[in-house]
């Protein structure tokens, strides 16, 4: 046993070393490629220049307007998706027949890349934040409604019967049986809805917009300011990763309680 544990430990260390080596090697390769091998600067700027630009972006605070735009759109889109998704999902989950009708419909639409409809949203809502909110809400709606139906619809019937037999009112049934049973599944749906809404908002800003984080990357690309664009990409990815990590942590916490 001890030998096995030691071997396990050694392997964990070795893999950490390999990971670190891989990342360092990649950055070194990037540096050499951009300084020595003469790879076009428009494709691969010097990593040091990218680093300087990243610091400059952070200190100058030029990202604040774009970040506020994107976060504002995200909050609006996610609120709409949550309100409509949970309400509709709950109502549908109250009847077996409704579930049989709507679950496959939502699943079918969910399988289509909804970003396809972006031109329609732009035609309808214009290039401003409204079209981003609309597409983010639409794309975020589906995982939320599907998981809400699954959460409320598949509560163990025995619990419901038992609670009823013990004289629970509608409110008590919801508060103490349905809601706690459905919560973990719904939380997963909320996390997925959040992630996809964020992704589609940044995506639609990249494709057609006037402001926001995604739009700024495109602006820098069109101005051929590659080092700054790389830095901005790193910044946006860090923001997205942070938001997703926060939401995952909230989900884990909600499941525990």
């Amino acid at each position, binding site marked *: 046993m001890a030998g096995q544990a030691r071997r396990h430990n050694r*392997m*964990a260390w*070795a*893999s950490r070393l*390999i*990971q670190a080596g*891989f990342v360092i090697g990649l950055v070194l390769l990037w540096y050499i490629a951009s300084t020595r091998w003469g790879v076009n600067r*428009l*494709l691969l700027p010097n990593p040091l220049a990218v680093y300087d630009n990243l610091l400059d972006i952070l200190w100058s605070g030029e990202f604040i307007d774009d970040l506020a735009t994107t976060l504002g759109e995200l909050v609006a889109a996610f609120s709409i998706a949550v309100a409509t998704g949970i309400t509709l999902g709950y109502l549908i989950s109250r009847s*077996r*027949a409704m579930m*049989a*009708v*709507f679950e*496959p*419909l939502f699943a*079918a639409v969910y*399988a*289509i*890349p909804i*970003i*396809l*409809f*972006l*031109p*329609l949203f*732009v*035609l*309808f809502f214009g290039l401003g934040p409204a079209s981003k909110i609309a597409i983010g809400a639409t794309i975020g709606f589906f995982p939320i409604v599907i998981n809400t139906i699954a959460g409320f619809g598949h509560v163990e019937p025995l619990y419901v019967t038992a609670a009823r037999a013990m004289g629970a009112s509608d409110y008590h049934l919801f508060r103490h049986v349905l809601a706690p049973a459905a919560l973990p599944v719904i939380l997963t749906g909320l996390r997925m809805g959040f992630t996809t809404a*964020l*992704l589609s908002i*940044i*995506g639609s800003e*990249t*494709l*057609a917009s006037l402001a926001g984080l*995604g739009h700024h*990357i*495109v602006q820098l*690309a069109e101005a051929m300011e590659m080092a700054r*664009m790389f830095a901005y*990409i790193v910044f*946006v*990815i860090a923001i*997205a*990763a942070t938001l*997703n990590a926060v939401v995952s942590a909230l989900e884990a916490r909600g499941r525990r309680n």
Partner: protein
Amino acid sequence: MVGRRPWVARVAVIAVMFGLWEIAARFLVDPLFLSPPSIVIASLGDLFDTPGIPAALALTLFELAVAFALAVAIGLALGLVIGLQPLVRKSFFPIVLLLYGMPQITILPLFILAFGIGAASKIAFGVTHGVFPVIVTVVAGVQNVKPILLVSARSMGASRWQVFRHVIFPHMVPSFFAGMRLGMSGVLLGVLLAELYVSIAGIGYFTTLFTQSFEPTRLFGLVGLLAAMAIVLNAMVRRAEVEFAKWRT
């Protein structure tokens, strides 16, 4: 009645949605922005007669096919390399998962700079979207093989290739096809995103054109066709998945 025949009610729901759309388009909304479905469907023939549209659809389908083939081939190769060796898996699988979780849309402009505005950038962006789910499911599939089967095959004198061919490969098939399904959704997303971003001959060119010239009839027709294409492609991969997972049961 509804309870026994849910599909009747499902068709009714779809019909009601189309009815609402028809009413809204005919009486409530400016015809510059919304066409009623009856006119959209009636003008699908015109859409195909528009010069460039059949070629654009064929080009998009070609990009999807090439990107899907590449994503599956690369994903299978990388998945096997990463999955078969415990040390390699421990080292590189977390990196794969990290990259999979990244919002790739942020690097779309880079793909255009590197591969141009033609088909190559769409294929490349489709591949990077489709390859990660394939890698992840192949690694998971390889891990699913019970160690005892590997040990017994080895002890009966199987070579490395024979172990792979007769033990690992059959066990991998179901998860591999699940990976192909996820890979197909990824490839669809990547190719269509790149098409919508910038395009000179694909469907992205025409969606932009129809949006800017306020032609909702043809825009709805084209987007509807693409959605139908996505549904058919997804259904094909799903059918293959069911078919190839049969041997287990």
